[in-house]
Each structure stands twice: as structure tokens, then as C-alpha cells.
């Protein structure tokens, strides 16, 4: 928008904005209230005076009071008229204000000339922009405005900090530097758009926000939330609008339909319950397309039944509730007007029926009655479960229902989860014929966030608590990262509900990001909170620590440390594992050792390694053993291990030896950070560092080393060769965060390893009170016996066992090394 366009756009709301400046909305409300009260008081005074005059009603009372009333009556009457005049003026000005205030207000039930007016910007945007335009300072205008301050409160930025920022700013950004753009051409410029534009143009504000740990995304997100809250408020204020009037139910709506007495024993009418009070915005914005699809299916003539296929908790019922709300408001397609939605309690019905005869006769009775009533949409929430229960009684539910499903006077909304749908319903042609299938998609991030915002407002309405925007985004992100099982919106709402008592117990009113992270940590055992000092030191030093333990593999260690830092600083993608690496190299060069060192240092203990020897999983049943088998109901090794320990290092030894199916499983895990077990439940792998090791291409590495080439330069050649040999597919290799080459160890490296290993022995002996001196002779023997370039450092262990430990053992048993001895071995002894 150019500045003149902006000026013209704001001018639409100008009359209301100027009135706000002359007298603020709050003051006007107070004045109106005072006038109203005075009007009532004067009216009562005039009335009592009149009554006392004509009827002598106050004869028994003191004469002076009656006298006072009667003498002052004209004054009261005059005051009444004057107050009335002022009241009318105040009301007229309020109407004048509202005329602009409600312009462009989005509404559910359309009203001519209100919502269809295409405005270039919203009232909220105009309100902040005018302040900026007048002062030539958009940032200041935003921060001083009512909604701006509210947005900053949502972002947990204290108001003192705002005033300090405004007074200590180095310079005010030139108004010409701001570019205000609508998100899409069809929508008006919103308050959130203004917020984003301001933070883009004003570098100083950006810095200020970063200082308070507010990201640009948080900033515009909070602004959007604030504006939505304001819109809902505006809509509720408009009592003469159809949205409000339409909620008042009428009379005679069910006079032409039957009363379903026997149905009412097992079902209740949900048309007007549920979402009505919870969701002011006219139904859930999530699943809007599914709701419209449901409406369209039900509005058809004949066989208009719907089958909603949704994950448990994905809100299939919410969709139905939303449709009910629409019906009760009358904003529904004409064929559905005056219909009633009944939620059937199939469990209660089965419990009541007990045997086949009762089940069938009672069900037919209910169905007959429903058809006769003519306006019933029956909701069967767990359709496949109901079919199963009926089967256990010996009845065929589908066959019983079938004739009724074609009736134009009776409709069914059945619900099933995808698993049950594919297993039991999809194969049944009768069901497919009678029902129109509607797949409910998982809600996207934005609608989860909106749902959270609505829920947060509802929690706040109960009092005592205030949610910051960051706490909500922490809920949304946390759910994605730490709880993969189930449906994200549902889990997010549960988490939000859990936070409230948690925060109140801490005697706090503000829900902050850290509160959410603490709760997640308490629930999962995975550290989520801000990086603590101890951990920070650990993280920054991890490269050094790992290098002390793993000799000669600096490239590998550098890559891993980098990935860890990214993971803990929250900049990596939360929908993937924390890190994933493929370690390539010959045996005994430190691949497994690196993994263990990592577990010990980052996750606190070496046991944080989940180790799978992939050479055990090369047979055809490998996948079944890993994720479980549906047929025999056995859980999988991998799935169970991950459920027990979702946080740590996953070590996949000899990765190339497993079969293709298993490799495909990991293709998905590396990409999305979860997999589904045999029963279709999700298993979270997002809090793992996945390390796969492989000997593939070791011979190549050897050859290159012999030719004296640098390994890091030849990485491409090696990877291409591995792909050519068909060991790994390129798409699998590409999904690892890094393919790390471990090169064979040099003699110096091996010597260093010998020292490390001897030190370990030294420690063990020290526990027995024997002090072992590591001298040149010892080192020489161990290195000489333990160096076999083909097997890296592996023979070293054996060398120590055979050459050193044996000699010491003989000494201990021979009584030559009692506790307290200083043991120094000579070359002769070791030979």
C-alpha cells in the first residue's frame, strides 16, 4: 500500500477514530452509565411525587418528605427531560461510532452491506496506523495503542520495558520505510500484517524483541491472536446482529415432526449443545473443509449418509457439533434446516439389549420411530465397535440398518478410525454404497495454534490465569516433538489443560514458555527447558571431551558436536531425529567408541545407548521382529525399546547387513522421526541421535590410504562406489545428517590408544590397591603386539589381556603383589 492509499484506507474509519480521540471508549461508556442511572433516579422521583399528589399514597409518611417531593417535582421533571436528551445524544453518538466500528466485521450469517463490503483494512489496523500516521512514528504508535500494549502483554514484555524503549530509542524510523502489505489480495490489511511490517522496517524494535526472547513469528502470531480476540468481542457486542439474534431459538420448530421417545432413551440431541458456548467464532476453523463436505453429503436427497474416517481424538465429533451449531443458527443448507442431530450411545444400547431378539426388535423400533419423526440425523460414534458388538449378540447390524439408510427421512453419520475402516468397513460393499466416506485430515500447525488460542481464552475466562503467546507456541511445538503418538491438536489441548493447575500450584498467574517446557520434561523425562549453565559447559566442551576419548577421528567428532549444538539450541527441525549419522570405516577405528563416549557425555550415561546389531536382522521376518507383528500380536524389540527409552543414542551396528524392508523403515525414521508399530501406533524417534555404523567400503578406504590420498577429499568417490555396489540406496544416504568416514588408525594413534587402555587397567588395579607404573617397556610390548592395521585397535585389547593382565594375575596369585605394591613391569617379565 502506498502512503496515499493507506491514508484513504484509514479515512474509512476516520469518524470513529476521531471520536475515540475526543472521548475514549471507556470514558464514553462511563458517561452513558451515569446518564442511565440518573435517568432512572429522576424518573422514580417524578413518579413518586406524582403518585403522592394524586392518590395520597404517602399519607402515613412524614409530611416534610411529601412536601419536599411535591415542591421539587417540576425540577425533577425538568432534570428528567434534560437527562433524556443527553442520553439520546450519547446513544446517537454511540450508534454513529458503531456504524464505523462494525464495518467489515466478519459474520457468520450474512447481512446486506456489512460483511461483504470489501475494505482495504480492518478497524484494528486502522486504529494503530492512525496513531502512527499522526505522530510520524509507526513503531511508537503501535506500542502506545491499546491493542499494541495488549499484544506486548501476550508476549510477556513488561510495560516498563516498552516505555524505556520508547524514550531511549536512538532514532525513529522514517514512515516512508514501512511497507504495509496484505497477506493476500482478497483479505484486508490486518493488525497482524501491520505488526509484521513494523518489525521488518524497524531494526531497533527487532533488537528489542530479540532481547525479550520474542521472535518475529511470535510477534505477528500474538498480534493475530489479539486481533481475533478483539473481533470476537466486537461480534458479541453487536446484539442487533443476526449472529447474536440467530442464537435465540424459536418456537414451533418441531411441531411437524414426531417425538422420538424410544430413541431418547439411548441418544441425546446435540444440535444445540457442545460448541455453541465454547467457540464464539462459529465452529472450529480446523476441519472446515470436512465440515462443509459433511454438510453437502447430508443435504443430498436419499442415501445421504456420511462415514467420517478420523483418528481418535481428531475431532470428528467436533465437526458434527459445529454442524449442529450451524443448524441451530439457521445458517445451513436448506435441506438440513430444522434437522436434529442425535448422538447414539451404542454401549448403553448393547448393555440394554443383552440378546439378539431384544437387540433387533428394539433397534428396529427405534429406527421406525426415527423415520416417522422425519428430522433425525443419528450419529454412531464408534461404528465398527457397534457392528462388532452386534455380531457378538448374533445380529447383523448392517443388514438391519440397510433399508433405513435409503430413507430420505432418516440419516446416519457413522464414525470410524482409519484402522477399523480399512480392516472392517472398506471391504463391505453395502457400507460403501450407502455411506459417503469423508476423510478427516490431521489438523495443520496453524489450526492447532488457533485451537490453542481459543482454549486459552476459555481458560482465562474462568479467571486467575494469563497465557503468554510463547507458552502456547511451546505447547504446539512440544507436542509435535515429544508426543508423536495420537493426534496433535487433541494432545495439545490436553497439555494446555494440564498446565493450568500446574501453574496455579506454583502460585503464578502468568503461564510462560518455561512452565510448559518444565511440564513436558516432567512428563517425558527428556530435558526440554532452557540450557542450564552446567549443560552449556558440557555442550561447548563436548568436542574436547570426545577427542580425549576417541583418538584420531577429528572429522567425525567435529560433525557430531555441531549437530548436538544445533539440536539443543532449538534451531533444528523438530520433526526429525536430533541427529543422524552414518559412520563408515574399517573395524576397530573407534566408531562404537565414539557412540559410547557421546552417550556418556551428552546423555549422562553409557547405558543411554540403544544398540541393535543389524546383522541379526537380515532374515525375512526382520521387520516383524523389530516393529512387532499384527498376526500374533507380539510387540517388536525396537518399538518396545524406544517406548521405554525415547531419549538417547540409537546405535545400529553393521547397518548394511539388514534387509531391504528394514532399510526402508529407517528411511522413514530418518525423514520424519517416527514410525508406526504393528498396531498402527506411532513411536517417537525424534529425541534420538541415530548412529548407523558400517564396514561398507572399508577396502576402498584402505586402498586410498595406501595410495597416500587424503580421505576427506575422496569422500565422493567412496560414497559413489558404495552406491554402485548396491549396499545403500542414494536416498537413504542423503537422509543422514552426515556420512562420516573413519579412517584407519596410524601408529601414533594406536600408541595413544595403548596409553588410554593401560590407564584403564591402571584404574582397575588401583581399586585393588596396586599401583601400576606405565613405562616404556609396557607401552612397547602392547603396541607391538596389538597393532594390526587391518583390525585397528581391536587386537590391542587382546594384547593387554594376554601380555599384561596375565603377568599381573600370576603375580597377584603368587602373592608377589599384595595390596599397596607399586608394580613396575620390565621387558623381561613381559616377553
Amino acid at each position, binding site marked *: 500500500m502506498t502512503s496515499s492509499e493507506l491514508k484513504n484506507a484509514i479515512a474509512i474509519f*476516520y*469518524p470513529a477514530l*476521531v*471520536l475515540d*480521540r*475526543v472521548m475514549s471508549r471507556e470514558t464514553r461508556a462511563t458517561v452513558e452509565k451515569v446518564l442511565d442511572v440518573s435517568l432512572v433516579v429522576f424518573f422514580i422521583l417524578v413518579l413518586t411525587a406524582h403518585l403522592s399528589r394524586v392518590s395520597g399514597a404517602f399519607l402515613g409518611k412524614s409530611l416534610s418528605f411529601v412536601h419536599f417531593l411535591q*415542591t*421539587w*417535582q*417540576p*425540577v425533577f*421533571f*425538568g*432534570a*428528567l*427531560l*434534560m*437527562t*433524556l*436528551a*443527553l442520553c*439520546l*445524544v450519547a446513544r*446517537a*453518538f454511540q*450508534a*454513529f461510532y458503531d*456504524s464505523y466500528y462494525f464495518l467489515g466485521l466478519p459474520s457468520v450469517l450474512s*447481512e*446486506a*452491506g*456489512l460483511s461483504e463490503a470489501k475494505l482495504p483494512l480492518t478497524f484494528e489496523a486502522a486504529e494503530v496506523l492512525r496513531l502512527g500516521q499522526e505522530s510520524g512514528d509507526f513503531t511508537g504508535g503501535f506500542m502506545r495503542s491499546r491493542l499494541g500494549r495488549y499484544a506486548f502483554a501476550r508476549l510477556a514484555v513488561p510495560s516498563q520495558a516498552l516505555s524505556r524503549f520508547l524514550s531511549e530509542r536512538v532514532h525513529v524510523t522514517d514512515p516512508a520505510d514501512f511497507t504495509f502489505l496484505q497477506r493476500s489480495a482478497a483479505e484486508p490489511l490486518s493488525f497482524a500484517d501491520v505488526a509484521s511490517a513494523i518489525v521488518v522496517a524497524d531494526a531497533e524494535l527487532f533488537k528489542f524483541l530479540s532481547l525479550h526472547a520474542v521472535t518475529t513469528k511470535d510477534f505477528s502470531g500474538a498480534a493475530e491472536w489479539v486481533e481475533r480476540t478483539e473481533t470476537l468481542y466486537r461480534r458479541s457486542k453487536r446484539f*442487533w*446482529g*443476526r449472529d447474536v*439474534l*440467530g442464537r*435465540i431459538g*424459536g*418456537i*414451533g*420448530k*418441531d*411441531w*411437524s*415432526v*414426531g*417425538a422420538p421417545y424410544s430413541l431418547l432413551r439411548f441418544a441425546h440431541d446435540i444440535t444445540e449443545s457442545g460448541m455453541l458456548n465454547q467457540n464464539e467464532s462459529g465452529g472450529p476453523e480446523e476441519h472446515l473443509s470436512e465440515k462443509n463436505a459433511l454438510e453437502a453429503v447430508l443435504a443430498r436427497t436419499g442415501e445421504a449418509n456420511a462415514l467420517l474416517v478420523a483418528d481418535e481424538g481428531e475431532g470428528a465429533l467436533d465437526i458434527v457439533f459445529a454442524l449442529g451449531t450451524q443448524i441451530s443458527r*439457521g445458517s445451513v443448507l436448506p435441506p438440513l*434446516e*430444522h434437522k436434529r442431530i442425535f448422538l447414539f450411545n451404542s454401549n448403553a444400547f448393547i448393555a440394554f439389549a443383552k440378546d439378539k431378539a431384544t437387540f433387533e426388535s428394539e433397534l428396529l423400533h427405534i429406527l421406525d420411530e426415527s423415520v*416417522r*419423526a*422425519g428430522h433425525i440425523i443419528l450419529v454412531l460414534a464408534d461404528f465398527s465397535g457397534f457392528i462388532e458388538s452386534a455380531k457378538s449378540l448374533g445380529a447383523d447390524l448392517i443388514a438391519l440398518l440397510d433399508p433405513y439408510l435409503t430413507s430420505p427421512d432418516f440419516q446416519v453419520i457413522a464414525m470410524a478410525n482409519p484402522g477399523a475402516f480399512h480392516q472392517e468397513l472398506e471391504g463391505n460393499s453395502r457400507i460403501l454404497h450407502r455411506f459417503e466416506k469423508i476423510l478427516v485430515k490431521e489438523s495443520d500447525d496453524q489450526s492447532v495454534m488457533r485451537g490453542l488460542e481459543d482454549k486459552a481464552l476459555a481458560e482465562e475466562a474462568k479467571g486467575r490465569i494469563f497465557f503468554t503467546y510463547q507458552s502456547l507456541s511451546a505447547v504446539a511445538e512440544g507436542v509435535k516433538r515429544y508426543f508423536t503418538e495420537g493426534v496433535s491438536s487433541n494432545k495439545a489441548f490436553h497439555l494446555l489443560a494440564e498446565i493450568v493447575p500446574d501453574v496455579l500450584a506454583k502460585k503464578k498467574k502468568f503461564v510462560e514458555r518455561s512452565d510448559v517446557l518444565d511440564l513436558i520434561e516432567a512428563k517425558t523425562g527428556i530435558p526440554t527447558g532452557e540450557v542450564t549453565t552446567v549443560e552449556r559447559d558440557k555442550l561447548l566442551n563436548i568436542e574436547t571431551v570426545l577427542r580425549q576419548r576417541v583418538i584420531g577421528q577429528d572429522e567425525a567428532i567435529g560433525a557430531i558436536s555441531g549437530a548436538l549444538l544445533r539440536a539443543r539450541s532449538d534451531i533444528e527441525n523438530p520433526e526429525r531425529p536430533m541427529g543422524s549419522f552414518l559412520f563408515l570405516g574399517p573395524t576397530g577405528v573407534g566408531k562404537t567408541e565414539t557412540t559410547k563416549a557421546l552417550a556418556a557425555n551428552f546423555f549422562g550415561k553409557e547405558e543411554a545407548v540403544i544398540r541393535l546389531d543389524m546383522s541379526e536382522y537380515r532374515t525375512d521376518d526382520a521387520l516383524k521382529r523389530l516393529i512387532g507383528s499384527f498376526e500374533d500380536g507380539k510387540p517388536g524389540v525396537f518399538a518396545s525399546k524406544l517406548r521405554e527409552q525415547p531419549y538417547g543414542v540409537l546405535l545400529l551396528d553393521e547397518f548394511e547387513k539388514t534387509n531391504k524392508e528394514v532399510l526402508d523403515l529407517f528411511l522413514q525414521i530418518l525423514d520424519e522421526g517416527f514410525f508406526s508399530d504393528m498396531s498402527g501406533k506411532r513411536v517417537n524417534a525424534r529425541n534420538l541421535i541415530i548412529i548407523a555404523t558400517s564396514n561398507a567400503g572399508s577396502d576402498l578406504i584402505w586402498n586410498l590410504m595406501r595410495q597416500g590420498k587424503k580421505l576427506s577429499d575422496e569422500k565422493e568417490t567412496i560414497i559413489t562406489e558404495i552406491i554402485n555396489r548396491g549396499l545403500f540406496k542414494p536416498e537413504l544416504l542423503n537422509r543422514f545428517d552426515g556420512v562420516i568416514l573413519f579412517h584407519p588408525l596410524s601408529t601414533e594413534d594406536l600408541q595413544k590408544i595403548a596409553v588410554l587402555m593401560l590407564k584403564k587397567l591402571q584404574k582397575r588395579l588401583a581399586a585393588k590397591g596396586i599401583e601400576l607404573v606405565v613405562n616404556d617397556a609396557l607401552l612397547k610390548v602392547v603396541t607391538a603386539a596389538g597393532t594390526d592395521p587391518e583390525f585397528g585397535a581391536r587386537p590391542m585389547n587382546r594384547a593387554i589381556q594376554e601380555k599384561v593382565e596375565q603377568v599381573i594375575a600370576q603375580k597377584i596369585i603368587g602373592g608377589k603383589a599384595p595390596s599397596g605394591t607399586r608394580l613396575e613391569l620390565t621387558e623381561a617379565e613381559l616377553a
Partner: protein
Amino acid sequence: MAFVHVLSYYIIWHYTTAWSDMARVVRNYLWFVSNFFSIKLLSKTLFSPWRRLAVSGGRGKEENFFGALVINTLMRLVGFGIRAATIVAGAFALFVTVVVSLLAALAWLVFPALVFFLFFAGLGYVSSGVFSF
């Protein structure tokens, strides 16, 4: 200065936009009243039996034919009676809404004069009352 501004905006609004706003409000209330009394729905189903209560004579029950006929006619009559009464009440409510709206429109037209009159008449009463002491 700003107040003069507002006043000028107000006066223009009072005799232009306000009319369409008022028309919209009146339409909303008419819509609401007709919806509340279900006038359209009830007119469509004026002669339907009350709450679909009906008995079927049916085949093989010829001896019941007249009984069924009587009951069904009765149900339709009951339905007609109640519905017709509601529709009449609704029509009356609509009429009242229209009359009130017309009066309001008239008052709106002379609003400035009305306010002046009320205010100064009131002032007159107050001053006469005070001066009579």
C-alpha cells in the same frame, strides 16, 4: 477543534449512512421475529398432523378405517389450530416491529429538534421550579 470535526462527521452520517444502518437493523429484527415464530415453516406445514401423530387404517383393518380417519383428521385440526394461532401472533409481532421502526425513523428525522426541545423544555421546568422558591 476535533469536536467540531466529529460534529460535522456526525451530522453528515445522521442523514446519510445512518438510514441504511437503520434499515439493516430493522431487517434483522423482522428476520428474527419471523424466525422466532417459525412463520415460513408453520405455513408450509399448516395442515400436517400434530407431531406426525397418526394411526394407519392399513390393509386388513378395514373396520378401523373410520376410526383412523377421525383420529387423523383430529390430529390435523389440532395441528392447524396451534400453528394458525402462532402464525397470527407472529404476524402481530411483525406488525408491531414495523410500527415501532416507522416511529423510530420519524424520531430520527427530527432527532436534532427533538433533543433540543427535550433539553430546553427540561431546562425551563428546572429554572421555573428553582425560581419559584
